C-alpha cells in the first residue's frame, strides 16, 4: 500500500479536491460558534484521505461543507473548497444539485436511516441516473442491477424488489454504497460508514470499499474515529482536534513517526495487540475536550499537553509546520521533543492474586417468548437468547465476555442481575442460588453484591435528580449508614474514589461530560461493596482519549476491592488488555473460553479466529490473516441446526460429512482451562496459525 501512496503523491499536478483555509461557524441564539478553523487538505485522483478525530472535532462538518449541506445554522465563513478546479463555496443550488450524487457522493453512519423506508430499493437506486444522466427507467434498472452485483449482494433482483427493512444492517450499508456508486463519482465521502455495524460485518464492508475504490478509481475521504480502520483503508491521514487539523501526512509516516502530541496521545491511549501490555500501559490524555467557545489561546491542545510550555504554546495561534514535504504538524515544539521516549512508566498495575470461586453459572438457559406484533397479530415465537452457558468467575478476577450483537451477552447480564430469571440451569453467588430468584425476591445484601455499570453514559443517570442524590439513594437502598448525614459523607468518599471533585454532588447529570457520567456510574455500582460487577461495554460510547482513563479507573477500583468483574465487550483490544480470562459467545452459545493468552493465540475456535481478523488494528507493524465471514449473524428466533456458527464458518469443509449441520459440537478441552465448542479435529487445531503477526521491527 505504501508504495502506491508515494507514486500518487509525486505524480499529482492538480488535486481532485483542494480545501484551503476553510472556516465554518454555527450560529446559535447567543453567539456564533466556530466549528472548523482554517482547515486545509487536498485529495488527489484515486487517493484515499482519512480524517480522524474525536466527536466534536469538526470532521463531519468538513464533509458536510464539501457537500454544502450545513443546514440552516451552519455557514462557511472563509477559505475555499475547489473540486476539479471549480469553487464549491459560492455555487448556486442548481449547480450543486448537478454535482451532488453524480460527481461527489456521500455515505454515512446509519444505513437503515439513510434509506427511505417507504420506497423500494430499486427506485432509490434508479433515481440517481434518472436525475443526473436522464436515463430511461429500463436503463437505470439495468445499471442498478449491475451495481448491486458489484457490491456483492446475493440475489440482486430480489434485493431490488425489497424495502429497506427487509434487509440486514450489512446489506443495507452495501445498498447505500451501491447508491453512491451509481453514477461513478470522482469523490466518495464516507462518514463513519461502519460504526453501527458488528465487527465481522464491518470487515466485509471495509474490504468492499477498498476493492471498489481501486476498481473505479474513486477518490475517498474516509472519516472515522477508529485509527485502525483508517490504516486499513487510506493512503494519507489528517488528524483533527477541536476544529483544526493538527497533523497530516502519509499514513505510515504519521503512524510510525507522529510529530504532534495529540496524535501521540491518541496512540498511547488505545490498546494495541502488538505491544506487551505490562511494558506499555495505556496512558490517558488528561483533561477534557475544550468546548468550542472555551478554546484556549494559542495551541488548542495546550492545556492537555505534557510538552506544554507557558509563554510559547499559548502566545499566538500555531501555524502548520512542515515536517517533510508531505507531512505537517501544528506544533511549534516538534523539533525539540524526543518522540522516541517511552511513555512515563506507572507504578502499580500488577495483577492481584486470584481468589476463590465467587460466581458459578451452570448450564444456564434463557428463552424469551416474543409476543406477536400487537397490531398485526401472529404467533408468539421463542428467542433462545442463552443456550447452556456455563462458567465460573473468581474473586478479583476479570472475565471478559466477547461477542457481537445477538450473541446473548446482554441477556446473560440481565439474568445475573435478577432482572430476568433463568429458564433452566443454576447460578450460584457464593453459596446462594440466584438464577431463579428475580431481584425483588433477593435480599438487600445479595442485591448489593452483584451490580452493574451500564453502556450508554447519556442514559445511565436519571436526568431529573442530582448526582449526589442518586448516589445517596443507592446507599439508602443498600441500608448503608444510620442517618442521612452518614450516607452523605459516604457519597462524598465515593466521589473521591472515582476521582471527581466533591462539588459534583450538587450538579445535575446534564452538566457532566460522558466520561464523568460513566465515573458516577462506576461509583454507584461500587457503592454497596459488591462481590461481582457486570460492566456492559462501559467505555464503548466514550471518546478514545477518555476510554483509557475510565477503563483504568474501573480496573484499579476492581483490583483494590478484590471484586470479580464480568467485562462485556466487543472490543478485543481492550479485552486483551485487562481480562484474565475470556469467554467468546455466538448466538447464545459459549463457543470458546480460556485464559486471555489461550484465547488470543492459536488454536482458536473458527469464530474467534474470524473475530480477531476482523478487528482493525492501528499498528503498522502488524500483519493480519484475512478471514472474511459470509453473510450476517442469524436471528436467535430461528437459529441454524447443529453448530450455531455453521452458516458462516470458513472451516466447515474441514469437518467431514454434514456433522456441523446436524449436531451441536461438544466442548473440547484443548489445554487446561481452555475449552472450544467445535467439531474440528485435533490435527486441524494443531495446524492453526496466529491471525495477528508482528512484522519488521516491533518484535
Amino acid at each position, binding site marked *: 500500500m505504501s508504495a502506491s501512496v508515494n507514486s500518487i503523491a509525486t505524480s499529482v499536478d492538480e488535486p481532485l479536491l483542494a480545501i484551503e483555509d476553510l472556516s465554518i461557524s454555527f450560529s446559535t441564539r447567543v453567539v456564533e460558534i466556530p466549528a472548523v478553523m482554517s482547515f486545509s487538505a487536498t485529495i488527489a485522483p484515486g487517493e484515499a484521505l482519512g480524517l480522524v478525530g474525536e466527536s466534536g472535532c469538526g470532521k463531519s462538518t468538513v464533509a458536510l461543507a464539501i457537500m454544502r449541506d450545513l443546514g440552516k445554522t451552519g455557514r462557511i465563513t472563509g477559505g475555499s473548497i475547489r473540486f476539479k478546479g471549480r469553487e464549491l463555496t459560492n455555487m448556486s443550488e442548481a449547480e450543486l444539485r448537478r454535482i451532488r450524487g453524480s460527481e461527489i457522493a456521500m455515505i454515512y453512519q446509519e444505513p437503515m436511516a439513510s434509506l427511505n423506508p417507504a420506497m423500494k430499493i430499486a427506485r432509490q437506486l434508479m433515481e440517481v441516473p434518472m436525475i443526473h444522466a436522464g436515463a430511461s427507467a429500463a436503463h437505470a434498472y439495468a445499471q442498478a442491477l449491475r451495481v448491486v452485483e458489484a457490491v456483492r449482494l446475493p440475489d440482486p433482483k430480489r434485493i431490488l424488489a425489497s424495502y429497506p427493512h427487509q434487509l440486514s444492517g450489512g446489506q443495507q450499508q452495501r445498498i447505500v454504497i451501491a447508491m453512491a456508486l451509481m453514477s461513478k463519482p470522482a469523490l466518495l465521502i464516507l462518514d463513519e460508514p461502519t460504526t453501527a455495524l458488528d465487527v465481522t460485518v464491518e470487515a466485509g464492508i471495509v474490504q468492499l470499499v477498498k476493492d471498489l475504490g481501486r476498481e473505479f478509481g474513486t477518490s475517498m475521504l474516509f472519516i472515522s474515529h477508529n485509527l485502525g480502520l483508517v490504516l486499513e483503508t487510506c493512503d494519507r491521514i489528517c488528524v483533527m482536534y477541536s476544529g483544526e487539523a493538527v497533523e497530516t501526512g502519509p499514513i505510515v509516516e504519521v503512524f510510525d513517526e507522529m510529530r504532534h502530541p495529540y496524535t501521540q496521545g491518541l496512540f498511547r491511549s488505545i490498546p494495541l495487540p502488538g505491544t506487551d501490555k505490562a511494558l506499555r500501559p495505556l496512558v490517558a490524555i488528561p483533561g477534557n475536550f475544550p468546548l468550542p467557545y472555551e478554546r484556549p489561546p494559542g495551541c488548542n491542545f495546550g492545556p492537555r499537553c505534557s510538552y506544554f510550555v507557558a509563554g510559547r504554546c499559548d502566545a499566538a495561534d500555531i501555524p502548520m509546520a512542515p515536517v517533510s514535504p508531505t507531512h505537517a504538524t501544528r506544533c511549534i515544539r516538534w523539533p525539540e521533543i524526543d518522540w522516541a521516549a517511552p511513555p512515563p512508566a506507572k507504578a502499580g498495575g500488577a495483577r492481584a492474586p486470584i481468589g476463590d470461586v465467587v460466581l458459578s453459572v451452570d448450564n444456564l438457559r434463557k428463552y424469551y417468548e416474543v409476543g406477536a406484533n400487537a397490531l398485526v397479530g401472529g404467533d408468539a415465537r421463542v428467542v433462545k437468547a442463552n443456550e447452556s452457558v456455563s462458567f465460573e468467575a473468581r474473586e478479583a478476577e476479570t472475565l471478559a465476555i466477547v461477542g457481537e450483537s445477538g450473541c446473548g451477552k446482554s441477556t446473560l447480564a440481565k439474568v445475573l442481575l435478577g432482572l430476568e430469571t433463568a429458564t433452566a440451569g443454576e447460578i450460584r453467588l457464593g453459596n446462594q442460588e440466584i438464577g431463579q430468584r428475580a431481584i*425483588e425476591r*433477593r435480599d438487600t445484601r445479595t442485591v448489593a453484591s452483584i451490580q452493574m455499570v*451500564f453502556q450508554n453514559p447519556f442514559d445511565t443517570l436519571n436526568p431529573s435528580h442530582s448526582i449526589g442524590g442518586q448516589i445517596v439513594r443507592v446507599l439508602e437502598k443498600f*441500608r448503608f449508614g444510620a442517618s442521612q448525614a452518614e450516607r452523605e459523607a459516604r457519597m462524598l468518599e465515593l466521589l473521591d474514589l472515582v476521582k471527581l471533585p466533591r462539588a459534583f454532588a450538587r450538579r445535575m447529570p*446534564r452538566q457532566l461530560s460522558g466520561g464523568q457520567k460513566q465515573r458516577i456510574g462506576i461509583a*454507584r455500582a461500587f457503592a454497596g461493596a459488591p462481590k461481582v460487577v457486570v460492566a456492559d461495554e462501559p467505555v464503548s460510547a466514550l471518546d478514545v482519549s477518555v476510554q483509557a482513563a475510565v477503563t483504568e479507573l474501573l480496573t484499579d477500583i476492581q483490583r483494590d476491592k478484590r471484586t470479580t468483574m464480568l467485562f462485556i465487550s466487543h472490543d478485543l483490544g481492550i479485552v486483551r488488555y485487562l481480562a484474565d480470562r475470556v469467554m467468546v459467545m455466538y448466538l447464545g452459545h459459549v463457543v470458546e473460553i480460556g485464559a486471555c493468552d489461550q484465547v488470543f493465540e492459536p488454536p482458536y475456535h473458527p469464530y474467534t479466529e474470524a473475530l480477531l481478523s476482523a478487528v482493525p488494528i492501528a499498528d503498522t507493524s502488524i500483519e493480519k490473516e484475512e478471514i472474511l465471514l459470509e453473510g450476517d449473524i442469524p436471528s436467535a428466533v430461528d437459529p441454524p441446526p447443529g453448530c450455531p456458527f455453521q452458516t458462516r464458518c470458513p472451516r466447515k469443509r474441514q469437518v467431514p460429512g454434514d456433522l456441523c449441520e446436524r449436531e451441536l459440537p461438544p466442548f473440547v478441552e484443548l489445554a487446561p482451562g481452555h475449552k472450544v465448542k467445535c467439531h474440528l479435529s485435533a490435527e486441524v487445531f494443531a495446524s492453526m496459525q496466529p491471525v495477528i503477526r508482528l512484522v519488521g521491527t516491533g518484535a
Partner: protein
Amino acid sequence: MEVLAPGAIVWQVLRQFGPVWLGMLLVMGASFAWRHRLGTYGRIYESPIGIIGFGLVLFWLLTAIMADWVAVMDPFVQVRALKNEPPGTIDPASGLAFLFGGDSLGRDVFSRMVHGSRTVMAIAPFATLFAYMIGITLGLPAGYVGGWFDTVLSFVANLVLAFPVILLFYLLVTPEIRQTAIPGTMAAVFFIFPVLFVAVFLWSRFRDRPEVLWLYLLPVIVVGGFGYLGLTGLWDPTGLLTMAPNTLNVFLAVVFITSPTVFRIVRGLTLDIKTRDYVAAAQTRGERPWYIMIWEILPNARGPLIVDACLRIGYTTILLGTLGFFGLGVSPESPDWGSTINEGRKLLRIYVHPALPPALALMSLVLGLNLLADALREQTMRD
C-alpha cells in the same frame, strides 16, 4: 337613548380592564426581568409566541379574579329598556354605559362576559388537574407493569373515548341524574385519586426511612382526607368545599372525558422511558415498582405532560362551552360563555352583539393556552 361613539367604547373598555392591565404589567414585568432564574416558566418569555399566549391566559385569569371590579354592573340585573340595544348605549336610569350593549333580557353583555370567565377559571384548571391525577396514577402502572391490568384499563379508556362526547353529556349532566347515586359514586371514585397519588408519592420514597415517612404522610392523610370528605359531600363542617350539584355534575363529566386521554399519554410516555438505562439501574439496586414509576419515570415525562396540560385546559374550556351551548348543567341564568353564546345565537342574524363577545372571549383564552403550549413545546425541545 344616548349612545357612545366607537372610540369612546374602546376607551371605556380599556379603562374597565385597568386593574387587569396593572396586574399583567406587574406579573409579566417581574417575570421577564427574572426569567433566567425561573426555570421552565421563565423560558416562556424567550419567545414572542409564549409571551402572547401567557399574556392572554393571564388576562383572563386576572379578569376572573377581579371580575367584580372590572364588570360595570351586576351580570344578572335586567334593564328592560336596554333589551337588544347596540353597544355603547347608556342606561338613562343609572347613567351606566352598556359597553357591549344589552342582551335579549336587557342584561349588560360586557359584564356577563367578564363574569363568565369565572366559571371557566373555576372549573377548567381543576378538572384538568383531577384528570391528570387519575391519568397518572393509572397510566404509570399500565405502562410499566403491563399485563392484564394494562389490557383492562386500556380497553376501558378506549371505551370512554369511543363514546360520543355529546351523548355522554346528555346522559350524565341532566337534572334527573342528580336524583341517583351516580354523581356521588363518581365523586367518591375520582376524588380519591389525588390523595392516593400524593400518599404513594411519599410512601414509595420514604418507606425505607420510617422516621420521616410518617412526618410527611400524616399531614397528607389528614388534609387529603378532609378535602376528600368535603368534596364528595360526605362530611363538610365548614361548607366551603361542597360544590353545587350542577357544578359537581359538570366537573365530574369533564374529568370523566378527559382522564382517558391523559391515561393514554402517560402510558405511552412510560413505555418509552422505562427502556432507559437509569430505570434498569434502579431495578438492579432493588427499587420497588412504585418508586421507579413515580421518582424515576414521572419526572422525565414532565416536559410533554406540562405541554399537554396546557392544551388539555384549553380543550376543557371548549367542553365547558359545549355544555353551556346545549344548556346542560349550569343554571340557565349563568353568565358562562357557552350559555351566553347559546342565548345570543337565536337572534344572531339581527343582533350580533350579544353572542360575539363571549365567543371571542372563549376563543382568545383557548388560543392563549394553545400558543402557550406551543411555546413550551419549542422551549423544552431545545434541550
